[in-house]
């Protein structure tokens, strides 16, 4: 019962670690009537303590690195991390900039990468689907 409802009721927390705001707007677009992520039970919550999924946008500036780590620790287990946008995946135009602590996976473990600049809402939905599949995998392996 647990994991099944887990993947049907994901609460996401959105963290901007220095993105240009393009990807953040696309995340909001995924919640609007046109794409309506809530029909899959996905809700944007205001506190990392309520979250199941951390949506990270942006290339992680030096200032944001410790905060990203801290917020990741505040999310209760089991949790997933989705990186939204090329910035967070590999740095994009900010690659090797002097004030970056590196892409997101240098700081915290990442489960799903969603590339794009900015990512399309369809891609974000697909990313969440990948997260579901990833959640299912260990369950299936345990059974067989």
């Amino acid at each position, binding site marked *: 019962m647990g994991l099944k409802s*887990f993947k049907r009721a994901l609460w996401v927390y959105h963290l901007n670690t220095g993105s240009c705001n393009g990807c953040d707007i696309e995340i909001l677009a995924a919640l609007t009537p046109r794409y309506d992520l*809530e029909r899959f039970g996905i809700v944007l919550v205001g506190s990392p*303590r309520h979250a199941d999924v951390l949506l990270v946008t942006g290339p992680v500036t030096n200032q944001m690195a410790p905060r990203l780590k801290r917020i990741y620790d505040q999310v209760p287990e089991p949790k997933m991390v989705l990186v939204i946008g090329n910035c967070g995946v590999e740095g994009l135009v900010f690659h090797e900039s002097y004030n970056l602590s590196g892409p997101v996976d240098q700081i915290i473990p990442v489960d799903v990468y969603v590339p794009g600049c900015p990512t399309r809402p369809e891609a974000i939905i697909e990313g969440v689907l990948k997260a579901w599949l990833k959640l299912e995998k260990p369950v299936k392996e345990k059974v067989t």
Partner: protein
Amino acid sequence: MLADTLLNVIVLIAGPVIIAFLGAIFGLLYLGVDRKLVAHMQGRIGPPIVQPFRDVDKLMVKESIIPDSAIAWLFKATPILCLVGSISLLLYIPLFGQNAMLTGFGDAIVVMYLLTIPSLALVVAGFSSSSPYATVGAQREMVMMMSYEFPLAMSIVVIAWRIGLVTNLNPFMLSTMAAYPIWGLVGPLGIVGLLILVFSMLIVTPGELGKIPFDVAEAETELAGGLLVEYSGRNLALFYISNAIKSFAVVSLVVAIFFPYNLSPILGITATVPAVILDVLFFLLKVFVIMFICVIVVRAAVARFKIDQASKFYLLIMSAVSLVGFVFILLDVII
């Protein structure tokens, strides 16, 4: 003799458990309907109606974090206190067209006091989690509690007073209110007054439930979840459930005070089983209609008040409105 006492004890133990389960199930169901309808009104498809059950189910498997700086025992006790407060509300309010479980033991005043317990538990929870967001949320919740109390008390007391004029039974008993439906007792002026009181009661309901536009204490966007910002996992699930139960209880209270009618006597159905089924369905319909008016439509239509606006709205405007309703009913009696 002994068997009787034993039976009583079993009823006393099993009754609340059953009522708590029914309250939780219907509360969560109405929450699901609420989310679905709001989504439709905003042109979205919305989550399935069973979504709140999935949410609770999921929260149960999550880790429950207790922050280092929180007062651990208070932090863990308040969700249970909140749940117990909401469930004991249900025991005093007539549900499903039947009498209340503890009918004859407590009246509308007891219910009014019990109504503050879940809110108080939330306030203590906010303070005990020692997060600045939660503290601000707790203070806001206290302000809200003080603000909506007067119009709420006014509606209940005026109606009890009017019923007290025609009967010797204790008019504050919700069963008396059911026996003497208020609408039959008053003249045209009184009807106007009653409509005003119904209106103020319907406006108090979303405030009491912490729903938009009065969800200042939780304020996702400014306070990041407000009171409950530090709660996770099972503790959060308990708050979620008690909120659902409280919504169901408060709306049932409005039904019990203003619309205590049953369908079966009107249609002349006397056989027990069909009558009960009919009454249950009719009760659920009444609850749905009231929820639709004062929670669902309002939630989809308006944005959140600021705390001072919400407080002023209740303290000044709604108090004045309920007093006007009282004056109308007074005139109706005098003339």
